[in-house]
């Protein structure tokens, strides 16, 4: 056995192991409620009765506010009980909303003098009670795309607006890869003059 084939075998095994290791964490396709698709965990705090009572009344507890401020994420302005899949209130889960301050919303006048829609509250944090602790999650960007994309881009096809707008750089790279394939075919095959006429 040549040393290069041993190296190739080892690297294939390493890549295969890495793929299996990564694939373990990939959620089932199309399950919108699996954890990596839905939200990212930020931190957890102790669940006092006071904090839970505050959350139930729609008041953001000061302790929670300080913790969120430490992470550098936008501060919530409103909190309410989470809704389940059929619109019912869920006990022990709360959703916190923010008012986004993006550049997109900060464009008040164009040359036509019309302003975009007023900023809208956006679901941002999910607070979950697990035993004696409160876990604070942030909704993943993909959830934001799914919920806000149609309103922001006026395109009903989710695949298209994620592919061409939110992931525009990525698609530009893909197009360049295809272009490179064409250029290599020209370089490798079209070498002997012109095509027959």
């Amino acid at each position, binding site marked *: 056995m040549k040393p290069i084939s041993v190296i190739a075998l080892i690297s294939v095994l390493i890549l295969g192991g890495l793929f299996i290791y990564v694939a373990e964490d990939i959620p089932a396709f199309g399950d919108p409620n699996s954890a990596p698709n839905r939200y990212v965990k930020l931190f957890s705090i102790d669940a006092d009765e006071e904090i839970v009572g505050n959350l139930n009344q729609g008041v953001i507890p000061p302790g929670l506010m300080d913790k969120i401020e430490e992470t550098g994420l936008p501060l919530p302005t409103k909190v309410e009980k989470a809704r389940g899949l059929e619109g019912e209130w869920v006990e022990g889960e709360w959703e916190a909303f923010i008012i986004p301050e993006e550049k*997109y919303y900060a*464009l008040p006048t*164009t*040359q*036509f003098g*019309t302003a*975009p829609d007023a900023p809208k509250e956006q679901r941002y944090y999910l607070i979950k009670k697990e035993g004696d602790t409160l876990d604070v999650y942030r909704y993943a960007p993909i959830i934001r795309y799914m919920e806000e994309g149609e*309103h*922001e*881009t*006026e*395109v*009903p*096809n989710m*695949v*298209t*607006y994620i*592919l*061409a*707008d939110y992931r*525009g*750089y990525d*698609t*530009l790279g893909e*197009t*360049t890869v*295809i*272009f490179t*394939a*064409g*250029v290599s*075919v*020209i370089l490798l*095959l*079209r070498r*002997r003059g*012109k*095509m*027959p*006429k």
Partner: protein
Amino acid sequence: MRGEKRIYERDVIIETISRLLIPFIQLFALYVIIHGAGGPGGGFQGGVIFASSFVLYLVVFGLAAAGKRFPEGANTALMSTGVYLYAGVGLLCILVTLGAAEYLNYGYIPLTHMFEENRALGMDLVEIGIGITVMAVITEIFFNLVWKKEEEGGKEE
């Protein structure tokens, strides 16, 4: 066109049917590209469908006739045109915003007075660019492979 080399022998049925079908394949490809925003489809898929019509033409009518319909110079030019269109839409955003770092943020292109509508139209432009590139590249690969095979086959005879 007697004495011309083809992959298959000449067949009236195949020629007639493909002559009828090719315009509709191309129309469907344009439909898929333009309606990529509203339904399933997009630049990649539409470009491949468009290329498949040229592939069908080449298989049926031979390389010389296909080379007349879609010359290699145009092919090469279109290949880069799509990428330039895509990147140009991105650069247009920078130009319109007078140098702000808004590359590929289609909303700032003043096509309509709505930010969101601009994004939808910019996406359509970008899909057209993708479609042109994919169409040219797939056609290019197939034409060159066939050409190479015919050249080598000619040597053996």
